[in-house]
C-alpha cells in the first residue's frame, strides 16, 4: 500500500508536467485551429533560459536559492512568452489562410531549428546540463513511502498554475475574449475584440506555461538537454488529442491519463518495462479509434 502511494506521487508529478504541455496545444488549437509542433522545443528553450538565469544570478552573487529560483522562473516565463508571441505574429498569423498542413510543417521545422540552435550555439549545448537543485531537498518518510518536499512543491505549483489558468479563462475579461475568439472570429471582431492582440496573448500564455513545465522538469530531474522537448512535445500533443483537442479539461485529463498509462506499462504489466512507451502510445491509438473527438470533445466541435 505504501508503494502504491509512491506510484501515485510519481504519476502525479509526470502527469502535471504532461498536462501543462497539453494545455498549450489545446489553447493554440482553440483560438486559431492550428497545431503548433514547435511547442516542445519552446519548452526546452524555456528550460535553458531558466538555467542560464539561475547561473547568471549565482554569478552576480545572489547565492540564496529562493532568489535564483525567482530569476529562473521570471526569465523563463518572460523569454518563452515573448518567443511564443513572436512565433504567432511572424510565422503563424501570416500563414493563417494557407492550408493547415503548411502551418504544421512550418512549426515542425521551426522546432527542429530551435533544437539545433541550442545544440550548436549554447555553450557546450550538445551535452546535458546539471540543473541546480533550488528547492529544499528534505523528505518525509512514511514506512516505504518517501515524500520529497521539492516534488510536493512542484506538483502543487503545477496544479495551482492549472487552476489559475482555469480562472483566467472563465472569470476574467481576457478569458472571455479568448473564448469569444475561439468560438467565432468574425463575431468577436464585430464585438470590438482586438483579434490579433488576443491571439498573441494566447500564444504567449501557452508558451509561458510550457516554460513552467520545462523548469519543473529541470528541477525534478536536475538535468536538462537540448532534446528534452521532443518526447515531451509528442506526449503533450497525444495527451491533448485523447483529452479532446480544444478542450482545456480534456488536456489535463489526457496528461494525467498518459502518465498513468506509462506507470502501468512500467510496473503492472508482465512484459519488460522497456515497452512502457509502446504500451502507452498503443492505448492512445486505441482511444483515438474509440473516441475520435477525444474523451471530452470541444463544445463547438461541429467545425470538424
Amino acid at each position, binding site marked *: 500500500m505504501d*508503494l502504491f502511494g*509512491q506510484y501515485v506521487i510519481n504519476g502525479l508529478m509526470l502527469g502535471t508536467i504532461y498536462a501543462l504541455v497539453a494545455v498549450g496545444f489545446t489553447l493554440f488549437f482553440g483560438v486559431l485551429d492550428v497545431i503548433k509542433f514547435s511547442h516542445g522545443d519552446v519548452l526546452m528553450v524555456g528550460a535553458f533560459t531558466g538555467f542560464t538565469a539561475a547561473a547568471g544570478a549565482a554569478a552576480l552573487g545572489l547565492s540564496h536559492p529562493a532568489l535564483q529560483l525567482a530569476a529562473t522562473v521570471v526569465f523563463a516565463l518572460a523569454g518563452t512568452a515573448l518567443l511564443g508571441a513572436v512565433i504567432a505574429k511572424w510565422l503563424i498569423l501570416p500563414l493563417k489562410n494557407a492550408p493547415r498542413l503548411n502551418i504544421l510543417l512550418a512549426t515542425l521545422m521551426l522546432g527542429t531549428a530551435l533544437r539545433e540552435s541550442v545544440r550548436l550555439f549554447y555553450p557546450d549545448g550538445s*551535452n546535458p546540463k546539471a540543473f541546480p537543485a533550488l528547492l529544499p531537498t528534505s523528505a518525509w*518518510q512514511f514506512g516505504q513511502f518517501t515524500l520529497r518536499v521539492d516534488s510536493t512543491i512542484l506538483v502543487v505549483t503545477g496544479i495551482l498554475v492549472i487552476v489559475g489558468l482555469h480562472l483566467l479563462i472563465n472569470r476574467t475579461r481576457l478569458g472571455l475574449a479568448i473564448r469569444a475568439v475561439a468560438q467565432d472570429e468574425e463575431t468577436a471582431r464585430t464585438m470590438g475584440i482586438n483579434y490579433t492582440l488576443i491571439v498573441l496573448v494566447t500564444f504567449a500564455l501557452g508558451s509561458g506555461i510550457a516554460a513552467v513545465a520545462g523548469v519543473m522538469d529541470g528541477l525534478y530531474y536536475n*538535468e536538462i538537454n537540448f532534446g528534452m522537448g521532443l518526447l515531451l512535445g509528442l506526449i503533450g500533443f497525444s495527451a491533448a488529442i485523447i483529452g479532446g483537442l480544444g478542450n482545456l479539461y480534456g488536456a489535463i485529463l489526457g496528461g494525467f491519463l498518459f502518465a498513468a498509462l506509462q*506507470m502501468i506499462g*512500467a510496473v503492472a504489466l508482465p512484459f519488460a518495462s*522497456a515497452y*512502457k512507451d509502446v504500451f502507452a502510445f498503443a492505448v492512445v491509438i486505441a482511444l483515438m479509434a474509440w473516441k475520435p473527438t477525444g474523451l471530452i470533445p470541444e463544445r463547438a466541435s461541429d467545425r470538424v
Partner: protein
Amino acid sequence: MKSILRFSVGAMLAAALAAAPLSGASAKDTVKIAFIGPLSGGTASIGVGGRNSAELAVRIRNADPKSKYHYELFAQDDECKPNVGVQVATKAAADRKVIGGVTHYCSAVAMSTVDVYHKFNLPVIVWGAVLPDITYGNDYKEVHRVNGTMVNQNEVAADFMTKHGYKTWVILHDTTDYGKGHNTYFSKYVTEKGGKVLATFGVTSDQQDFTAELTKAKELKPDVIYFGGLTPLGIRIRQQMDKLGIDAQFEGVSGIVSDAFIEGLDPKLAEGVLAFREGAPVEKLPGGQYFLGEYDKAKFDQGPDAYGAFAFAAATMMMDAIEKVGPDRKKVTAYLADIKDRDSIVGPITFDDHGQNTVAMITKYVIQDGKWVLWEDSEYAAGKRKLVAPK
C-alpha cells in the same frame, strides 16, 4: 601593356605549378588516421579525452624526424548513435587517404560499423567499446581492440560483490547491445556465485524518468541496484534512487567510469558508487606517467578521461604498422594480425584470431571525495568508510 602583364602573370603561374610537385616530393607524404568517438552528447568527455590522446600520439610521431610519413588525425563525432556512427565511418572509409582507424567508445555504435570497415578493407583498432561481439561476433580481419571485454569485467564484478556479502540485486540496463550484454554476463556470473537477481528492467537509452522502475525495485528491497549502461542514464538513476529514498548500494559498469559521472551528481550521491573497468588505471600503467606527462605538456582543455590511454596506444600501434608496411590498408591489416606481446603504454598487447587483445585485467573503482579511486587504495577497503551494508 595589359596583354604583356597578363602574359607574365600567366607565365609565373605556369612556373609555380610546374615547381609544385618538385617541392612536394621533398616533404613527407601525408597519411590520415581516422579517430571516431562521441565528441558530443552525454559521453562526450570520454570521446574528447580519447580524441586528444590520439591527437597527442600523432603530434609525437610527427615531431619524430625518423618517421617516414606526415600523419593527420581525421576526427569524427559518432554522437554515440549507431546511425551517425555508420555515416561517419563510411565517410572515413571512403576517403582513400585514410589508412587506419581508431574507433568507438560506444558498443552499440561499434557493432553497427564493423560491416562498413570490412566492406572498405579499413583496418581499425577499437579504443573503448567493451561488447564481446565487436571482435568475437564476426570474422572480420580488419577489426581489432586494445581494451578488454565486458565478459571479464562482469566476472570480476560478480566475484567482488558476492565476497563482500551482497546477496540480492535489481538490474537496470539500457536496451542497446551494450546494456543487454552487461545484463547477460553479470546475471550469469552473479547467479553462479550464489547471488540472486530479483528483477531486471530494460530502459531506453534516452529515458528521463525511472521512478516507476525504481519504485518497483524499492518494493523488492535489494542489497544492490546494478546499472548496465552509460553515464547520462547512470546519473539520472542514481539521482532518482535518492529521490525515492532507496537504501541500496549502487553498482555501475565501465560505462559510468568517467569524470562526467561525478560532475553530474551531488558529491553526497556520488560517494561510495562502485564500478569496474578493464585495464589498469592510467597512473598504474607501464607507460602511464610518460603519457600523462606528455598530455599535460600538450595543454588540451580537458583531461584524457578513462579511456584516453587506450586511444593513445591504438593510434600509436596504427602508425607503427603504417611505418612498417607503408600506407596500404590490406598490408596494415595483415601486419596487425601478427601482433604479439607488443609493448604499449597500456601494457603488452597480443591480438588473438579475432583481433582481441587477450590481456584481461580488471580494475575495481569506488568514488571517494569526488574522485574515482582504486578500490585497493580507498578508505573503503581500509575499513575507514563503509559501503551501503547488505540487508
